[in-house]
């Protein structure tokens, strides 16, 4: 284990003036101290690149049906083979990355905002509000994520919007515990008391004094949430309750009508699952490294 003293707010000050230099310095540290995390970072960047430029990179359209080429094994023309409708698997995987990037980033961003809002307010205010809020979070967390998702989608109907909002709320409420924990310790610092005694308003204290000092766990939370969201979305799509076909979601590609063709064309079963695994693995190891570097207090926690 690398014992690094937490520079905390001291390091945060110059970073604000030169954001780019700070980021570069941080990446340097990542590559030196956490090779596995750096590997994860590189894979995440490749994934992001594939997602953003899927339209350019994909040799065919994601729903370009060509009956002549159905169930073709991987070849020079179709690198990952074709499915039962003759659609190119590589193109579908690339467009799948695009969907995962969109859903992963937006749902994780929403989740983080919800977590920060509940966590900061509940942790800072404390008292009865906190008590009631925490009982609610307790009750919420006794429901399995996937079952909440299935039930809500059964009511609202599947689609990209509902899936993003749902995953955001779902992981937002659960993650508020971590933010609240961090706020509880920040709340007792002298600078917060100083702000209170000078008569700073509640929003100002929360925004200027509490929030910047819980940013480290919040960044880590966001990163790990992207992975969790992608995994959950693929599970939902696998059950046929995610973004409806013909959208090429990785989870959806492993389910539905394609399943019976996997016995004839096993490559159909490999590529989408491998995409999910590699991306989630990369996000997890990057998140772990980020946690060790940014927030030594959270080391070892999940």
């Amino acid at each position, binding site marked *: 284990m690398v014992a690094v003293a937490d520079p905390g707010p001291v390091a945060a000050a110059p970073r604000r003036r030169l954001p780019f230099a700070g980021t570069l310095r941080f990446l340097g540290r990542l590559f030196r101290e956490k090779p*596995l995390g750096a590997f994860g970072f590189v894979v995440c960047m490749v994934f992001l690149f594939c997602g953003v430029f899927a339209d350019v990179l994909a040799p065919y359209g994601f729903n370009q049906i060509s009956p002549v080429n159905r169930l073709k094994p991987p070849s020079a023309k179709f690198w990952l083979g074709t499915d039962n409708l003759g659609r190119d698997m590589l193109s579908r995987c690339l467009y799948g990355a695009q969907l995962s990037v969109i859903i992963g980033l937006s749902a994780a961003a929403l989740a983080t905002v919800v977590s920060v809002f509940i966590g900061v307010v509940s942790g800072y205010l404390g008292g009865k509000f906190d008590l009631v809020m925490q009982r609610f979070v307790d009750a919420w967390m*006794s429901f399995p994520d996937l079952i909440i998702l299935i039930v809500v*989608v059964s009511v609202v109907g599947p689609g990209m919007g509902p899936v993003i909002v749902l995953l955001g709320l779902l992981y937002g409420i659960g993650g508020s515990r971590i933010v609240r924990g961090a706020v509880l310790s920040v709340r007792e610092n002298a600078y917060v008391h100083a702000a209170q005694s000078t008569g700073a308003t509640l929003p100002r204290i929360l925004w200027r004094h509490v929030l910047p000092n819980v940013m480290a766990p919040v960044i880590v939370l966001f990163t790990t949430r992207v992975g969790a969201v992608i995994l959950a979305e693929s599970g939902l799509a696998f059950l046929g309750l995610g973004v409806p076909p013909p959208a090429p979601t990785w989870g959806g590609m492993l389910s539905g009508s394609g399943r019976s063709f996997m016995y004839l064309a096993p490559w159909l*079963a490999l590529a989408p699952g491998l995409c999910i695994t590699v991306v989630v693995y990369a996000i997890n190891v990057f998140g772990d490294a980020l946690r060790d570097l940014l927030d030594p207090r959270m080391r070892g926690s999940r």
Partner: protein
Amino acid sequence: MQAYLVRRLLALIPTLVFASLIVFVTVRLIPGDIIDLMLSSNDIGADKKSREQLEAALGLDQPMVTQYFRWVGAIVFEGSLGKSLWQNTSVMQEVLHRLPITFELGLMALVVALLAGIPIGVYSAVRQDTPGDYITRSFAILALAVPGFWIGTLVMVFPSIWWGWSPEVKFTPFSQAPLANLGQMAIPALILGLAFSAITMRLTRTMMLEVMRQDYIRTALAKGLATRTTILRHALRNALIPVVTLVGLQAPVLFGGSVIMEQIFVIPGMGLLLLEAVSQRDYPIITGVFLVVGVAVVLINLLVDLSYGLLDPKVRYR
């Protein structure tokens, strides 16, 4: 102990009230009219019932607050979760019939997770920073990233292609043929327990590393106690307490994961019941499964809390 138990049970009430509210609000208040969905889609039997009949069947003709108290009242006083919309069977009976199957799957996954996770975690901690430690840790991070439904799919597809073998999909109940049933559940339980065992392994390792640095371990080793005995009797017992907490935290994850395993391996548990109900838009069943799973998780966590005393004599039930 008795006073503690009573207090602990009383503390369950607010959690259960919130849980029932979450279930109620989720199913009834979300934008999108359930009735419209039921009437618009060409569901089996939907055309046989008129809008008024459906509203009355779901109790939607009453004000929201009345609906909630009626629903809760029926559960508390009559033990009734209503009737299935299409089959006219009692939801409670249906759910109680399926619950043991999901429970068995979850329990087997738990056993897999603990049997694999704890020994590997101890090994990894004792051999800290050796190749063995790195390999097991990398494997654990990988296990957390692999989606269970993918492994399930691979298990269905590849053995069938290579050896013509595929998992049995005709379900045998435990009461009929215990061994056949356990054999059938083994593969889904292994897959379901995989991620859980990785988490267990990581936590056991972290806790072992922390405990091994304690003075009493040094004392035990210094007085000449065998390393093996020290690790098993002194260190592991103390390291395991957070692992017990983990069981409670993972209970909802197991319930969620079992939905997917039940779907892939056609196991008629709660998860399959839920998916069938979703495809038929049978809201009383959806609501019933949702609530029962939530309550089950709350009760499992109560058991976990109570079990601390068995492991840790320091815990007093005050």
